[in-house]
């Protein structure tokens, strides 16, 4: 074990650090949930994430067009009396698929919102960005759901098993053209990206390695009637391949074993994990340390994160409150912090699209850039207005329609005894919103705002205070 991951001294454990764990390993929480973590102490708090109860995490998947029903649509299209009838059936299927995708996104967002196993959802989101498969090309919501479940099942597991499962994942097979890869005409798309994007990064393999690996990944097919993976022996190229300087009649799984054996794999994934959980642009030493930790754990995510989350490095001042919230994180963390349900589907769809993170539709094979790329003048204004919308339900803000106002538990956010004076109210509410004490400039401005209002403060004042707190650059950080 390296020096890097010396545990945080227990005596330093406090509300801000407990909130940091909640925010990074999950999607945040209320002051009550933070206090619960404080009471547990750091060991049990970390364990509550890495050993969470996944059994109790029941979220029945939405209904969608299953493979058998899709086959039925195809049959009807084939037997349609003319082109126009065929187009009509196709439109019917497209309509069903559009609704399925919306349901699927809302289902996952609600799962993130209410899960009893938040780290699993957080890692599923990490892997979704890593494998970056978009329904824009896959064009089958059912397959997107199946991939989501594959990512969730492997979320905290071993990287080699995950890579093997993902190579057999029907949505991935379609996304990177693996289904068209034949013995006589191997398609290199998956072979390239499995190394460039999923495990090693550019520059750690040759073009010849790609061509040889492409031969090994032949014969991967999808059964149309069930939407399941099947291996087509006759399309598989069983000839000898030469990969990373070794020769043999390698299969796709053999290739993955050779890839993950490279120290670079732990570095590549370690760097992404550090960026996702700790801080942007890790130093080479930090990457090396996390890579060593991954290797010591045989590329198993769960023990790796257990050590990372318990470490002093994870709670460094360079990490705490230094990360720009992604749109999904912003949305889930805001509703958890306020103690309100997610908005209706229409609002979720419109806002995550405007903010640039549509689930199951990452912008390209590299996934979301994250960090500063989340923030533009337009998206920042949109975030401010979305916060106002969550608090006021005034639908004009999102361009019309009838907004349903969520009932904000203002009595719980600011109990009567906290409403007697500006300092009492401010510090209480600011901790909930920011999880760190407000700096002088912000504090002074909040106080000026409250100074003009009569105490004890009304619900309207508390609501406005929340709104202006969420309309700051500070609130974009977690």
């Amino acid at each position: 074990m390296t020096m890097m991951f010396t545990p945080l001294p227990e005596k330093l454990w406090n509300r801000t650090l407990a909130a940091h764990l909640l925010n990074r390993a999950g999607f945040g929480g209320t002051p009550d949930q933070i206090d619960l973590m404080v009471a547990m102490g750091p060991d049990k708090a970390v364990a509550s994430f890495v050993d969470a109860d996944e059994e109790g995490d029941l979220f029945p998947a939405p209904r969608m067009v299953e493979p058998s029903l899709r086959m039925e649509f195809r049959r009807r299209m084939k037997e349609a009396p003319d082109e126009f009838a065929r187009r009509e059936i196709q439109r019917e299927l497209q309509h069903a698929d559009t609704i399925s995708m919306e349901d699927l996104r809302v289902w996952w967002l609600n799962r993130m919102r209410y899960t009893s196993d938040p780290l699993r959802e957080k890692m599923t989101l990490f892997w979704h960005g890593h494998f970056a498969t978009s329904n824009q090309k896959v064009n089958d919501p059912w397959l997107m759901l199946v991939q989501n479940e594959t990512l969730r099942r492997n979320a905290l597991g071993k990287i080699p098993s995950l890579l093997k499962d993902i190579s057999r994942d029907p949505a991935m097979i379609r996304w990177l053209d693996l289904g068209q890869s034949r013995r006589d005409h191997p398609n290199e798309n998956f072979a390239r990206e499995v190394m460039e994007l999923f495990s090693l990064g550019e520059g750690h393999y040759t073009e010849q390695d790609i061509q040889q690996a492409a031969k090994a990944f032949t014969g991967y097919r999808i059964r149309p009637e069930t939407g399941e993976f099947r291996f087509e022996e006759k399309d598989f190229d069983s000839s000898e391949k030469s990969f990373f300087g070794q020769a043999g009649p390698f299969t796709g799984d053999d290739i993955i074993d050779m890839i993950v054996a490279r120290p670079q794999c732990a570095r590549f994934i370690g760097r992404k994990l550090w960026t996702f959980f700790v801080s942007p642009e890790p130093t080479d030493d930090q990457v090396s340390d996390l890579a060593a930790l991954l290797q010591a754990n045989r590329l198993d995510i769960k023990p790796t994160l257990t050590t990372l989350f318990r470490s002093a490095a994870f709670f460094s001042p360079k990490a705490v409150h230094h990360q720009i919230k992604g749109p999904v994180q912003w949305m889930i963390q805001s509703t958890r912090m306020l103690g309100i349900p997610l908005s209706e589907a229409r609002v979720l769809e419109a806002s995550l699209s405007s903010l640039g993170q549509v689930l199951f539709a990452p912008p390209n094979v590299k996934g979301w850039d994250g960090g500063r790329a989340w923030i533009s003048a337009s998206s920042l204004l949109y975030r401010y207005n979305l916060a106002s919308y969550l608090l006021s339900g005034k639908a004009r803000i999102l361009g019309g329609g009838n907004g349903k106002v969520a009932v904000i538990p203002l009595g719980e956010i600011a109990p009567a005894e906290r409403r007697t004076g500006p300092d009492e109210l401010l510090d209480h509410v600011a901790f909930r919103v920011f999880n760190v004490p407000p700096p002088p400039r912000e504090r002074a401005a909040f106080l000026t705002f409250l100074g003009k209002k009569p105490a004890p403060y009304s619900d309207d004042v508390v609501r406005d205070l929340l709104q202006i707190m969420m309309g700051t650059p500070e609130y974009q950080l977690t």
Partner: protein
Amino acid sequence: MKRPSPRTLHTRRDFLRTSILGGALAPTVPLFLEKTFLCLDSMAAETTGQYPTGKDATILVVLQLAGGNDGLNTLVPYADDAYYRARPRIALPRKEILTLGDYAGFHPRLSALKSLYGEGHLGVVQGVGYPNPNRSHFRSTEIWQTASNADRNESEGWLGRYFDNCCGGSDPSSAGVAIGGQTPQAFASPTPKGIAFTSPQQFRYMSEAANDPAAADTFVREMNQPSDAGAPSLSENSGGSIGMIDGPADDMGSTMEFLQRTALGARMSSDRILSILRKGTSPVSYPASQLGNSLNLVARLIAGGLPTRVYYVSQGGFDTHANQLPGHDRLMTDLNAGLASFTADLKAQGNFGRVLLLTFSEFGRRVAENGSAGTDHGAAAPLFVMGGGVKAGLFGKYPSLTDLQDGDLKFSTDFRSVYATALENWLGAPSEKVLGRKFPLLPFV
């Protein structure tokens, strides 16, 4: 890079204090605003020799025809029998074509474009595409937006790379404005610069949601600007109180600075855009369509002197798989009317000579019609360039209708030659830096 004289800088700073920020920020002009001046000034020195105040710099408007416009029914090869053989149901009658020479001519609804062509303000680049064409909307749009090779996945947009190469840390609206709900991938860059909005009413902080809108507005204005020099931000300050771990929170300043800079930029561009639009409406009427509204907005922003040099608008609905004729007719009518109004508006403003409008679509369509009187996804297609500075004419060559590649036209001009020409000869930007390599330039500007 030529540095502006201190005198110039001083004047610019005064200008900013008084005209853009009003009194709000008078005592301290943040560092990034000074960078904006330096940048604008050096751009001016390198390119036009003039300071682009918003009244004199050249402007590029990119118009996306989303869905894959049918190039063959847009610039119709009316003299080619192969066209009529391939499209027995949807070929446009020869006598209705607005001819340009003896081989091809415009769709009958493109009368204004025909006139512009005659006046010398419209060029058509023929057979535009790229090697190994991709027929997926998603992927081919991405290729056009990132200007990448078909076998490479890039995430930055070509205009985003232009912004990065030409101008750091400026007011975001001076880089690019897209009319639409999402920033186009063409604008994508590691630190996003342009802005995007569907309607300007949405591109502002909506304080009316608060119970006390005036107080909320004042607060948000105060808080969304860079902190005074030396004043610790939330996170810097909190390092001591939360940070049991030693070591200063040194990189925080930059993330916070970035957020504050973006927030102030958002406020500035929002204020400026709304103040321009409040001044009045266009003297010209536009078609009541999404395209008409978008072009109208762009014209008003240009008239108002917004120093933006790149605008992005789009028209949807070009995926004409079935019963194509009436649908495509409506699209051409809308495009024609939109561009006619835009031209008349810009001419009335005296800005027509400053604007180059460039259309593109992710692909053309198959040469042969399909079984439902429509067309499926194809490859190469023509695109339009329009503006007072354009040299009229047909550029590149019309691809053969019989020498096909998988049933599709073979491209004769790489789309990145069109981009390179717009970058080099219109925006005065180094195209090789933006596009990664040199592409032959075309003589349309």
